[in-house]
């Protein structure tokens, strides 16, 4: 295709948008609104996924807190028993001193707060690393067996968080399903509005198209300006939605990290990461909805 032809088509595309300003604005708004909703859904799903991922990373271990009364021998004994359970990758012993140090490290700047503790009340513990999080239930059952069957009294508490992770994943998948259905409807509406906008341009250019047809313009030559019009409408809509997502997310992100809990920022997907995900999705959907809207209109109203 010649550059002059491309120029001509771009120009016709923009002329079409300008000629039906009202409908163009409606099209752009509907694309922008749909994508903004998609943005909110993506925000929620990404963050839940991220949280559950972090949770999984942290909770692929089972914490077994031990009774203070246990002797060194008993401790190593129960350690061996744990290692023997199938599904256990390895077992770490963490003394109460180790536990305090780790905590200080985790708290970082606020670690000095722990210095005021007069006595280390943290328990000694075993950290069981399971091969996969799915094995956690089984391992915990076996641990309870050691307690019940062998009447071993040394285990004070077993902590593991598979349920939390499961719940988070369930919420994420629920939001995703509902969100997708909602988005599908919104995008169909956007497409319909774009198709109607294109139809107006088609009507305005009817005479021109008839002449183009008679002098032998190719079908693509006739169609391209309408595609461009549709895609530009979609793309403008997606840019507006991206701006909304950027500032909206930035605002929410700042609110969470500043006003709430500092530590939480580590669990929230960063603004940059969010944009990296949404820009390609929005661009493709925006242009795609526009192109599809044009196709719908052209198929119905343009016989070339």
């Amino acid at each position, binding site marked *: 295709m010649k550059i*002059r032809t491309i120029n001509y088509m771009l120009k016709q595309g923009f002329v079409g948008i300008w000629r039906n300003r009202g409908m163009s604005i409606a099209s752009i708004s509907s694309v922008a609104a749909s994508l903004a909703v998609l943005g909110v859904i993506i925000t929620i799903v990404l963050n839940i996924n991220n949280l559950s991922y972090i949770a999984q990373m942290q909770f692929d271990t089972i914490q077994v807190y031990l009774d203070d009364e246990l002797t060194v021998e008993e401790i190593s004994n129960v350690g061996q028993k744990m290692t023997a359970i199938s599904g256990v990758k390895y077992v770490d012993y963490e003394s109460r001193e180790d536990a305090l140090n780790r905590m200080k490290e985790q708290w970082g700047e606020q670690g000095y707060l722990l210095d005021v503790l007069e006595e280390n009340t943290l328990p000694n513990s075993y950290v069981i690393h399971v091969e996969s999080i799915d094995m956690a239930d089984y391992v915990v059952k076996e641990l309870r067996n050691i307690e019940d069957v062998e009447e071993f009294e040394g285990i004070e508490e077993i902590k593991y968080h598979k349920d939390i992770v499961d719940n988070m994943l369930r919420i994420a998948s629920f939001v995703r399903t509902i969100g997708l259905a909602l988005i599908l409807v919104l995008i169909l509406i956007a497409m319909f509005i774009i198709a109607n906008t294109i139809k107006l341009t088609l009507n305005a250019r009817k005479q021109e198209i008839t*002449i183009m047809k008679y*002098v*032998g*313009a190719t079908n693509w*030559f006739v169609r391209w300006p309408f595609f461009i019009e549709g895609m530009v409408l979609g793309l403008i809509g997606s840019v507006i939605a991206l701006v909304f997502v950027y500032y909206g997310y930035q605002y929410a992100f700042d609110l969470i990290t500043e006003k709430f809990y500092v530590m939480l920022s580590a669990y929230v997907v960063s603004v940059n990461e969010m944009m990296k995900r949404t820009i390609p999705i929005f661009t493709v959907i925006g242009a795609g909805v526009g192109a599809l809207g044009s196709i719908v209109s052209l198929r119905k109203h343009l016989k070339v």
Partner: protein
Amino acid sequence: MIQLKNVSKIYNKGIHALTNINLSIDKGEFLFLVGPSGAGKSTFIKLLLKEEEPTEGSIVVDHQDITKMSRRKIPYHRRNISVIFQDFRLLPNKTVYENIAFAMQVIEASSKDIRRQVPMVLGMVGLSDKAKQYPHELSGGERQRVSIARAIVNNPSILIADEPTGNLDPETAWEIMKVLKQINRRGTTVVMVTHAKDIVDTMQQRVIALEKGRIIRDEHRGAYGYED
């Protein structure tokens, strides 16, 4: 140049628009197609332009059977066979020059060719001084000449004129005929559908008369043959 063999066209509603048409038109001919309304003249033009497909038969234009032509090739076929109408079909928001240049732009002609061709055809139809005017500033005859200029600017080998003088007074009609004859002399085949008895009778060209979808007369140096 143009051959129709056993061509029939039956529309969906069962209307027999054309029945068993056999016709051969040579290169460089000037031909009148006459007949009452509903005789099948419009269908004939639509078949040549491949706007409609014949129900039966074959149509060969420039050694190519257009009934077997793929849809993709239709635009290229239409660059070779152009058409003018009774109602001119000019774009009102474009100047005379732009209207003609538009026909070249949409087939992606180079600007160099456009700058060369447009003034040339404007000269041929005698409108060099009206290039910058808009269609509404022109008389009917001038508008038809612009539409002729647009039709020939891409050098088609066939020009179809669908009642080109239908909206014009007799004097202006003759101006248009002069232009068409001149184009014909350059080697372009001209097929003109008309109801203008005096023009047909005076021009002494081949006349094909259609009635109820059939050719009832095909005469060289013929006359209109109907009483108005």
